[in-house]
């Protein structure tokens, strides 16, 4: 009975209903659209960022994370390799040996990071191959071929084909020293990740450092959103640790989280404006109907049913707005998820170049605004509902 009346009330004043609905639809679409964009641009940034060097998850010796010592290594690489191969969620993975070295050339010295990587598997995990600017990607192992960062080539004055001497401490305490051959140079970027790195193949690096171990395994998963779950489920042996990118790149992740928090403030403002609009229309509709409500009360409607009616009215209206709103939002989001908004000038952030922003359709970008709209509508309709319930039938009917 109350429900029926609520429905009738909604459809009687079409213009007023349309106005309120418009308010709600507008608010919903705006929220959903901006959320989709935020998710989209963050998603892009994350995948760009992780594809540089991090990958989606990494395995280390748990001591290596703090010590970065050559001795805190992964000794059971063969076993881990099998486990990763047999895991259906893993798309690709790459072993790495990491340590520091001193580079010499033309009587100059420069401290570098030395990475022993697998020429074949590394490009399947990261975008390293695309970043190579000069020279070519090597394919043979154990021949001391290296790819160097642009900073190193600049400081030491190295060109493709030149020799570079590297000195470091070997894992057996010996003085690691050898001549390497520059096969390629990475592109020059603002804060480029490769700037201070020398990449060689795993066999050459292991020979150089007199070790048979590795220090890091970078893993690429079918979906980056499974990184946390994968890391908790994938079993590594005692002394080793597997971490998702959120932990490996803690600083980056935290900066993003803070940025996201900042965004919630702007959503709150949008929602506040929408809520005020809804409050306004609901309140108006009650004032308009003072007489009717008075009559209803006079014929014996309880104050409870009366407030329920008002609340139901606004909730039904909100629901309908959501349905229309989500259709519009889907159209809008799916368009922008394909075409995006391109920047007139590409933006660099942490060594990544972002040239366009794309929307991304996630459940989050629908559900969250929907809940927000429903709850805020409920909230603002309570006040008019109470007001309606308190109406004295005599005073109400006396009004025009």
């Amino acid at each position, binding site marked *: 009975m109350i429900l029926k009346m609520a429905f009738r009330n909604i459809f009687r004043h079409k213009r007023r209903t349309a106005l309120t609905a418009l308010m709600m639809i507008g608010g919903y679409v705006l929220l959903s659209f901006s959320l989709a964009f935020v998710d989209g641009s963050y998603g892009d940034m994350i995948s760009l960022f992780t594809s540089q060097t991090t990958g989606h998850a990494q395995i280390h010796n748990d001591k290596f994370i703090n010590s970065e010592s050559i001795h805190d290594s992964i000794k059971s690489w063969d076993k881990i390799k099998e486990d990763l191969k047999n895991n259906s969620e893993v798309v690709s993975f790459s072993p790495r040996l990491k340590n520091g070295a001193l580079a010499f050339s033309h009587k100059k010295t420069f401290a570098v990071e030395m990475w022993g990587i697998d020429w074949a598997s590394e490009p399947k995990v990261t975008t390293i191959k695309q970043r190579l600017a000069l020279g070519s990607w090597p394919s043979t192992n154990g021949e001391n071929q290296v790819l160097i960062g642009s900073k190193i080539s600049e400081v030491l004055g190295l060109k493709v084909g030149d020799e570079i001497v590297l000195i470091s*401490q070997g894992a057996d*305490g*010996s003085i690691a*020293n050898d*001549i390497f051959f520059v096969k390629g140079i990475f592109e020059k970027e603002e804060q480029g990740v490769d700037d201070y790195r020398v990449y060689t193949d795993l066999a050459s690096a292991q020979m150089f450092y007199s070790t048979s171990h590795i220090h890091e395994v970078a893993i690429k998963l079918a979906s980056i959103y499974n990184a946390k779950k994968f890391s908790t489920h994938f079993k590594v042996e005692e002394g080793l640790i597997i971490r998702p990118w959120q932990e490996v790149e803690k600083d980056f992740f935290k900066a993003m989280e803070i940025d996201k928090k900042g965004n919630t403030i702007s959503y709150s403002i949008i929602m506040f404006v929408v809520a005020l609009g809804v409050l306004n229309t609901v309140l108006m509709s009650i004032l308009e109907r003072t007489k009717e409500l008075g009559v209803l009360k006079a014929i014996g409607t309880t104050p409870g049913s009366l407030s329920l009616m008002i609340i139901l009215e606004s909730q039904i209206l909100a629901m309908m707005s959501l349905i229309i709103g989500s259709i519009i939002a889907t159209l809008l989001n799916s368009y922008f998820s394909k075409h995006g908004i391109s920047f007139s000038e590409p933006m660099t952030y942490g060594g990544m170049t972002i040239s366009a922003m794309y929307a991304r359709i996630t459940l989050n970008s629908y559900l969250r605004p929907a809940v927000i709209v429903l709850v805020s509508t409920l909230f603002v309709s309570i006040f008019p509902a109470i007001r309606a319930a308190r109406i004295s039938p005599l005073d109400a009917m006396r009004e025009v």
Partner: protein
Amino acid sequence: MKLLLFTLFLLSPNLYAVTLNELLDKVDKLYRSDKSYSDVQMEITTPNWKRTLSMDIWTKGLDYTFVVIKKPRKDKGISTLKRKSEMWNFFPKINKIMKIPPSMMMSSWMGSDFTNDDLVKENTLRDDYNGVLTPVKKGDTLYHAILTPKKNAISVWGRIELEINKKDLYPVRQIFYDEKGIMIRTISFTDIKKSGNRLIPMTMILTPHTKEKDGHKTIIRYIKLDFNAKISDSLFTRRNLQKRR
């Protein structure tokens, strides 16, 4: 009588000092002679690895030293030259001579627990340290000496304790302390053998006591020692250092 006492007073510390200086000089020149050659094995143990180096060492007095690593194969030909207070390493693989800067004197020599400074030995115990010889009690087999650096001497140690065998006057143990009085390392000398006309401890064991060097140990074994080697002076030149072997 007065004169006699005065003479005694003048003489006694001198007599004392001569004996201590003699001892210190002996330790300083333990493995040295006018010209010496030795075949040495160095065994380095750390918690993470263990390796043995085999090398030839030539010396001329206290000022010149030349070391060439023979084994393992990976390090073959790596050599060190010391001339007075300067020191260079040569790496044949990369054909590079690297001078050891003064700041690196206390760092490890070829990954061992010996420092570059141990090799250079710019300081001699006799010239750069003041010593106090603890009075010898009856039945003691050892002399104990506590050495502190002289005021104008540049030393890396705050104090050195020396134990010397009374009978043969060869060192048994040398304990090194830093300026704060913390024990840094011990060198023990064992395996005394007659080499030429003198008794020499053929094994030297260095044990560091610092926390970061926990589990480290370096043992030097003299396989061959020749104190009357015929060596040309050109051996101790940079040109010779860079020769590929």
